[in-house]
C-alpha cells in the first residue's frame, strides 16, 4: 500500500489555564491516504478542531507534542513559522469552523480570492482573473464575472460557503481540512456543498479531512473515520465498517442514540452520564464512567490502541464482537 500523504502519531495538545491543565488532545494517531476523505467525528469539545489546528501550528496558547507529524516528506513539527505559512497557503488549505468570520465584509469576493492568488501563485493579472472565474463556476456560482464584484453580504449562507471553498481551492492544495463546513447550512444546501466537495476531491485526486459531529454526513461522505471522545481516538476504520459494526462501546452508544430513519422507535437509546470535564478526566479509559461494558481494569488503566483487521483500530479492553 502507498504511504499516507499525512501521518500523525501520538499527538497531544494541552492548555495550561487557571483552572488547571486541559488535555484537549491526548495521544491521538491518524493518517490520511492520498485521494481519500477522512472523517473526524466526536461531540463538542472532544478535540477535533484542536487536533487539526495543532498540525498547522495554529493553536494559540497550547503546547503541542507528537512522535510523528508528517506531510509527504516534511516533518511538520520542525517547520519554522515562515515555512509553515507557505505550506498552509499552498499545500494544505483549511476551511475554518466559523465561515462568516473567514470573509472580510469590507472587500468584494473577487478581491479576497485574488489576494490569496497573489500571495501564493505567480499568475499575472489576466491569468488570475481567468482562474477566479473558473473557480467560481467550479463551485457552482452562476454568472461568475459579475459575481466577483459582489460583497459577502450579497450572498446567501450557502453561496458564502461555496466562496470559502473556492478560496481554499484557489491555490490548488493537496489537502483540504474542512472543519464543520456545512453545520450552518440547510439540508438541501448541505447536500449540494458536500457533493461539490466530494466531487472536487475524487475528480482531482486531492485528499480531505472532514471534521463534523454529524454521523449522517460522515456516513454519506467519508471513506474512513476517526471517532474521538474527550481528547482520545476511540475507534477508527473504514466508515462503512465502523457505522455498521461499531466495536467501541462509545461508537455503539453514539450510533444507537440517533433516531433511525427506517424504524419507529418508542424511545431512543441514551448514553448514561455526562462527558467528563476537560480538566478533570478519568484516570483509566475516558469513557469508563459511562460505559455499559466497563470492568475494574477500565477504571485504572488506559486501554492501548489495538489493531484489528481491515485497518480498524480501537482503544478498548472489551470491544463489541460481531454477532
Amino acid at each position, binding site marked *: 500500500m502507498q504511504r499516507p500523504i499525512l501521518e500523525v502519531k501520538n499527538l497531544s495538545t494541552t492548555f495550561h489555564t487557571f483552572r488547571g491543565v486541559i488535555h484537549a488532545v491526548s495521544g491521538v494517531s491518524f493518517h490520511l491516504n492520498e485521494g481519500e476523505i477522512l472523517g473526524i467525528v466526536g*461531540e*463538542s469539545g472532544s478535540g477535533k478542531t484542536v487536533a487539526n489546528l495543532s498540525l498547522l501550528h495554529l493553536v494559540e496558547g497550547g503546547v503541542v507534542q507528537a512522535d510523528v507529524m508528517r506531510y509527504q516528506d516534511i516533518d511538520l513539527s520542525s517547520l519554522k513559522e515562515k515555512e509553515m505559512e507557505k505550506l498552509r497557503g499552498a499545500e494544505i488549505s483549511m476551511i475554518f469552523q466559523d465561515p462568516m468570520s473567514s470573509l472580510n465584509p469590507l472587500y468584494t469576493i473577487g478581491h479576497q480570492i485574488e489576494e490569496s492568488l497573489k500571495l501564493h501563485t505567480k499568475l499575472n493579472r489576466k491569468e488570475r482573473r481567468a482562474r477566479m472565474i473558473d473557480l467560481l463556476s467550479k463551485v457552482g456560482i452562476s454568472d461568475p464575472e459579475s459575481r466577483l464584484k459582489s460583497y459577502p453580504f450579497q450572498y*446567501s*449562507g*450557502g*453561496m458564502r460557503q461555496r466562496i470559502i471553498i473556492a478560496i481554499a481551492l484557489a491555490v490548488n492544495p493537496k489537502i483540504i481540512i474542512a472543519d464543520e463546513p456545512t453545520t450552518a447550512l*440547510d*439540508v*438541501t*444546501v*448541505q*447536500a*449540494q456543498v458536500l457533493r461539490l466537495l466530494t466531487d472536487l476531491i475524487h475528480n482531482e485526486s486531492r485528499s480531505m479531512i472532514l471534521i463534523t*459531529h*454529524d*454521523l*449522517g*454526513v460522515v*456516513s*454519506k461522505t467519508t471513506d474512513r473515520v476517526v471517532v474521538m471522545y474527550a481528547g482520545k481516538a476511540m475507534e477508527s476504520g473504514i466508515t462503512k465498517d465502523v*457505522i455498521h459494526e461499531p466495536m467501541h462501546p462509545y461508537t455503539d*452508544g*453514539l*450510533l444507537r*442514540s*440517533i*433516531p*433511525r*430513519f*427506517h424504524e419507529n*422507535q418508542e*424511545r*431512543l*437509546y*441514551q*448514553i448514561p452520564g*455526562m*462527558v467528563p470535564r476537560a480538566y478533570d478526566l478519568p484516570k483509566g479509559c475516558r469513557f469508563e464512567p459511562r460505559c455499559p461494558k466497563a470492568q475494574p481494569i477500565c477504571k485504572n488503566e488506559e486501554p492501548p490502541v489495538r489493531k484489528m483487521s481491515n485497518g480498524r483500530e480501537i482503544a478498548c479492553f472489551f470491544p463489541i464482537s460481531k454477532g
Partner: protein
Amino acid sequence: MEKILEVKNLVVEYPLKSGILDFKVSKSGISRLRPVVHAVNDVSFSIKQGEVFALVGESGCGKSTVAKAIVKLIDKKSGQILFRGDETSAENQDSLNEFRRNIQMIFQDPYSSLNPRQKVKDIIGEPIAYHRIRPNKASVLQLVSELMEKVGLSNEMMERYPHQFSGGQRQRIGIARALSMNPSLIIADEPVSALDVSIQAQILNLLMDLKDEFNLSILMIAHDLSVVKHISDRIGIMYLGKIVESGEKDQIFAEPKHPYTRALFSAIPIIEDTNPYDPIEIIGEVPSARMLPSGCFYHTRCPLADEKCIAMHPELVDIDDDHFVSCYHWQKQF
C-alpha cells in the same frame, strides 16, 4: 380529539427601514413600496390534544415567526389564532395571563435563554410565584424541586447558576420552567439543534415521556428530519412563509407529494442505509422574503413549473384523508 390550537390564515410581516431601492416602476408611474419582510404568508394548521405537530423547512422560511405570533411575542397582520376554540384578546389581562400560562415555549439556545445571574431555583421559581401557582415561598421551592426531579436534575443543583450546567442540563432547566406553568401546549423551537447527539436523545426522550404523562400537545420546530420523523404525529412543511404540504407523518414520509418536500427528503443523510427517495437537486436559491415570486412561491426552483404555476398560487388541497398539498402537479413524476 379536541383541537387545542388552531392557526387560521396567519400572516406576519416585519417592517424594514426604507431604502432608495424601494420603488416599483409600473405603467401608472413610479410607486413607493412599503418595505416589509413577508415572513409568514397565510399559514393554517391545527394541533390536537396530546399530539406532536412538527413544522419543518429551511432557514428563514418563517417557523420561528409562526411560534412567536402564537405566543403573542410579535403581532400578526391578519389571521386567527384560536386556543381551545377562542381568540384571546390582548385587552383582557386575565384571559391573556391564562393564555400565556397555558402555552409555554422552549427555546433553541439553552445558553442564552437563561438569565446568567439567576440561580436555578429562581429561574424556575419566579414564574411560579408570579402566576401564583403556589401560595408561599416554601411551597414554590417544593414545586421547583419536584420539577427538577421530573426532568432529571438533582435537588442540590438548585443553588447553581446556568454556567455551571452542560447544554443538555440547561435545556432541562428550560423544560422544567415551562412545565411549572402546567401548560397544555408546549412550543419547542429547535430544542435539540444546539446539542450533541447523545444529549439530544435524552431531551427527546424526556419530551416524549412528559407528553405521555401529562397528555401534552407539542408544536415542535426542527430541521433535522430524522428527529421529526421520530417525535411527531403530524407535520407541516414550510417554504417561504407558506405550508406547502401537511398531514400524518407516516403518510408524508411514505409518499411525499410536493416537489419541495420530495427534494428536501432526498437530501436527508440517512446513516443506516442509502436514502430511499429519488434524488432531486434543488436548483438556485430561495427567493428573498422581501420580494415574493408570483404564483407558486416554489416555481423559481421547481423542475415541474409551467405557466400556470408562474401565474397562480395553488391552493392547499386535501388529496387523501387529511394529506394537504399545494401544487398543481403533485401527481406528476420527475
